[in-house]
């Protein structure tokens, strides 16, 4: 087990390096002086000189990359061109808000998606099944930003059930529309996977055995079939959580949610390159870290994976 953990975390390193190579080349492709870009327009000459030395823009590319890595290793992501604040500080400050939104969204997606998936697997071929499949196609096809605006129009502006935007000082009502918007895509996927996985489980002999024992159908479905089809669902949920920074850029913009996504959009609008690159790098690292966690938990949750000798 421990050796597996170590191996998995070690495999994380080349991927991280690869990510930084890509962001490094993106920085190289930026218009303008990279030193100025990293340091910020209003940087004092000392900072400029320090970064210039560190970056060594006259040195060959591999050396420059090494300099970039050493900056990153110390959490130096540069400063915003507009506010002159350290991007790393901003990221850490905004992250909790995005995390809160992401957790609410994943809760919505898992509860809704698993319920929908179970209903359509158990009531296969009925109206319910068809309704669930329409919902799951719609969920992956609607543009997030348009879904958000439409929900806002209907539930906040017309019906006035929920606040249209803002964070409301942490009141849960403000969380509902953004979470539903962000979570709908995953909900659709979770519903699909749950349906497929449940249908497979329901056709297994142990389900027939549980029924033959005279167990109530609800027990058969929830305890026997669902429990055994959870692994792919959990995997999917974990991976989706890691990619929520994607949807957050759009969702947070629409609902005025003060997280990483809106921070990224502000950066895009102002061409604030250190901010954009900071969010891209941060998002990729979170995503990869989530991948590793899912892999490890998969290994942990499924006894079949654990018992199998490792190759």
């Amino acid at each position: 087990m421990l050796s597996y953990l170590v191996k998995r975390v070690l495999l994380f390193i080349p991927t991280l390096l690869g990510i930084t190579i890509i962001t490094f080349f993106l920085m190289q492709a930026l218009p303008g002086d990279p030193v100025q870009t990293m340091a910020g327009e209003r940087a004092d000459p000392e900072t400029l000189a320090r970064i210039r030395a560190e970056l060594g823009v006259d040195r060959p590319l591999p050396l420059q990359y090494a300099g970039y890595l050493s900056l990153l290793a110390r959490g130096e992501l540069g400063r915003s061109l507009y506010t002159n604040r350290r991007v790393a500080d901003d990221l850490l400050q905004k992250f909790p808000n995005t995390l809160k939104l992401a957790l609410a969204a994943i809760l919505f997606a898992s509860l809704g998606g698993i319920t929908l998936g179970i209903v359509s697997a158990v009531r296969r071929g009925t109206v319910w099944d068809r309704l669930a499949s329409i919902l799951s196609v719609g969920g992956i096809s609607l543009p997030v930003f348009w879904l958000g605006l439409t929900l806002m129009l209907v539930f906040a502006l017309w019906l006035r059930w929920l606040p249209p935007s803002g964070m409301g000082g942490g009141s849960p009502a403000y969380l509902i529309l953004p979470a539903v918007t962000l979570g709908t895509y995953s909900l659709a996927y979770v519903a699909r996977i749950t349906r497929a996985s449940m249908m497979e489980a329901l056709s297994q002999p142990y389900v027939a055995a549980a029924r033959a024992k005279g167990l109530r159908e609800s027990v058969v479905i929830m305890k026997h079939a669902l429990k055994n089809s959870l692994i792919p669902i959990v995997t999917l949920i974990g991976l989706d959580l890691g990619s929520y920074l994607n949807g957050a850029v759009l969702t947070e913009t629409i609902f005025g949610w003060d997280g990483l996504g809106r921070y990224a959009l502000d950066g895009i609008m102002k061409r604030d390159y250190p901010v954009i690159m900071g969010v891209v790098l941060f998002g990729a690292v979170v995503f990869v870290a989530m991948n590793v966690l899912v892999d490890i938990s998969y290994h942990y949750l499924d006894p079949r994976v654990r018992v199998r000798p490792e190759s």
Partner: protein
Amino acid sequence: MKNWLKENPLTDLQGNLPALLAAVVLAVLVLTAFIGPFLVSHDPLAIDLDSLRRPPGRDHLLGTDSIGRDILSRIVHGARISLAVGISATLLSLGIGVVFGLFAGYFGGRTDLVLSQVFDIFLAFPSLLLAIGIGAVMPPGLSSAMLAITLVSWAGFARLVRGMTLSIKEQTYIEASRAIGASTGRVLFRHILPNALPLLLVAGSLRVGGFILLEAALSFLGLGVQPPAPTWGSMISLNRMYINSAPWMVIFPGLAISVTVISFNVLGDYLRDRLDPRFRA
């Protein structure tokens, strides 16, 4: 192996109503992209300050936007951009994915190790985020949107092709063609590729919708084709502050995206059910 072409899945769509509908919608859409711009009566760029934010009506079937431009003709013109980006990004990323996937799968060993690592790195980015990064360093426009989408998606296809190549190359007919002295290029592109094609068609068709969504998101963020050119994504972002007073300006472009993407996804699902042996009941 090639009989999937003979029993053309598109000819017996009648059995599947959603797929048939999706095919019809897409046919209409393609037609709209080609000839629609000649049929609509309004210039999509013409500013008309006498008719700002008109609700849908006789003169403007879907209303006008905040500077009086006709929304219907903007949606019709926008179809060109959406389809062009969605379809060309699919073909480009499929093409790149096929080449690298074939190489990685066929040559194995160190080639495979290095290429697979590269695929994994590209797949390690959340796609919209990487597309934003790429889009931000290039001058915004049609080709940079296309390039950004291609760069974030080719690796997925490459990994798929690599996997298929690994299993196809063990088949006896590949051994046979090598035994009679076929060149590597011939084995790769004449023997392995055609056998991977049905599944690639499925994978490609399942992704077109996602690419159109990605293009819309990039336009929405201001990183796609630039205003005043009409794109569905930018129509939504430019008009979103009027969502309460003039919802049609946002609702209709969004419906255009949704209907298009739903149709691609439904058709993709259908093709997968028909062509992917793992999904055949």
